[in-house]
């Protein structure tokens, strides 16, 4: 059963989510990948103001393809998240509560997620055409010079994700694999 969630992801919603939950997200999220994260991180280090409000924000690690006329966005599936690991703890400390990507996260990121309350969602990698259907609006809000890597503000409707790591540090990449291997044992 899919859980419908309205963004922003406030702490009460963060705490209710558990690894393995399938969710449909609706509301506003921001895109950001390598280059944008690096710039945000540098601003944080210098104590400067950020171009977007991080409090209760959800960031989708994605670099979409260019849109055609009549489309809200091009293909837009998740990119591999570990490349953001160096930057995510600082954003989580500023109140970022949601991240959407694919693949593993570092112990430092998980530690920050537990300390401040944040959720890491997985979207299906390599399904950019399908996922783009749930993105209704897309506009650049910062770093336009970065092209696909600019920060875009997205309005999404029923965007499908799975909770991979919850705010207690439970990790579907561990439990999912274990559950499958256990299911084999039961068959035998």
């Amino acid at each position: 059963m899919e859980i419908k969630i309205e963004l922003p992801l406030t702490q009460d919603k963060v705490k209710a989510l558990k690894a393995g939950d399938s969710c449909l997200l609706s509301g506003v999220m921001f895109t950001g990948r390598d280059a944008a994260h690096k710039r945000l991180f540098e601003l944080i280090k210098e104590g400067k103001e950020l171009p977007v409000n991080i409090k209760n924000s959800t960031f989708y690690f994605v670099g979409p393809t260019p849109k055609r006329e009549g489309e809200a966005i091009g293909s837009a599936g998740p990119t591999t998240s570990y490349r953001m690991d160096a930057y995510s703890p600082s954003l989580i400390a500023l109140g970022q509560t949601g991240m959407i990507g694919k693949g593993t996260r570092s112990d430092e990121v998980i530690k920050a997620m537990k300390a401040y309350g944040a959720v890491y969602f997985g979207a299906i990698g390599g399904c950019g055409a399908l996922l783009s259907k749930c993105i209704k609006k897309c506009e650049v809000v910062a770093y336009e010079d970065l092209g696909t890597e600019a920060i875009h503000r997205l309005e999404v409707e029923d965007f499908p994700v799975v909770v991979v790591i919850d705010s207690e540090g439970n990790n579907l990449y561990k439990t999912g694999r274990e559950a499958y291997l256990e299911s084999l044992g039961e068959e035998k």
Partner: protein
Amino acid sequence: MREISTNRITETIKRLCIEANCKLPIDMKTCIEKSREAETFPTAQGILDKIIENYNIAEKETKPICQDTGAACIFVNIGQDVHINGNLTEAINEGVRQGYRDGFLRKSIVSDPLERVNTNDNTPAMIYYDIVEGDKIEITLAPKGFGSENMSRIKMLKPSDGVKGVIDFVVETVEKAGSNPCPPIVVGVGIGGTFDKCAYLAKKALLRDADSANPIPYYAELEDTLLTKINALGIGPQGFGGKTTALAVNIETMPTHIAGLPVAVNINCHVTRHVKEVI
């Protein structure tokens, strides 16, 4: 001597860039659909269904299957009886430029690995040339995403490590990659050659149809052994658990030195794109 114009090459490359990125080849569809039938774990079944739905949407709407439309890896076999009017490399890059622009594909190449400024036209392409007999040009175009490219590894094994060493290294590489390269994956394995040739073989292995086997029975068997071992890891589609961690293992080999046993593993995702055309 047969004359081939650079315009024709540019036009072909442009068309192949768009086709490769929007239409998954039939060998990949076959492998994914067979894996879906064989998959027993419900979460994994659901993900494979979405993967199938995605490539059908992409093909119908001529939309990129994946937003990472890749580095344009291009393998050109040039017949020695062909004469090309003009600059071949420039003609190929112009085709990539036009294909990525007109096909609304993502431009993912930075001009310098450390300065990291986007070239904004996805050039330069990663090109390999080979001189072959005949009066034709065979072009294989394989856009390569980097989520999976980043999980690739090479190791210079000792001859005494033998086939066990090869198996252990390949399986270890896939296990370390885990959920990162968008499983289910295709595993390209190069064995032999020198350090550089071995990596090239692994990339070339990814050009071969995923439902094909190495023509040498010993290596065809090794491909099966590796696929079975990889799919026993339980990583599953997207790393959420399941049988379908890899769709195929393709091995390419060549002679090597008496002192060495190089092994390279080039990982690709379930969007293993490759198109071929002969001019």
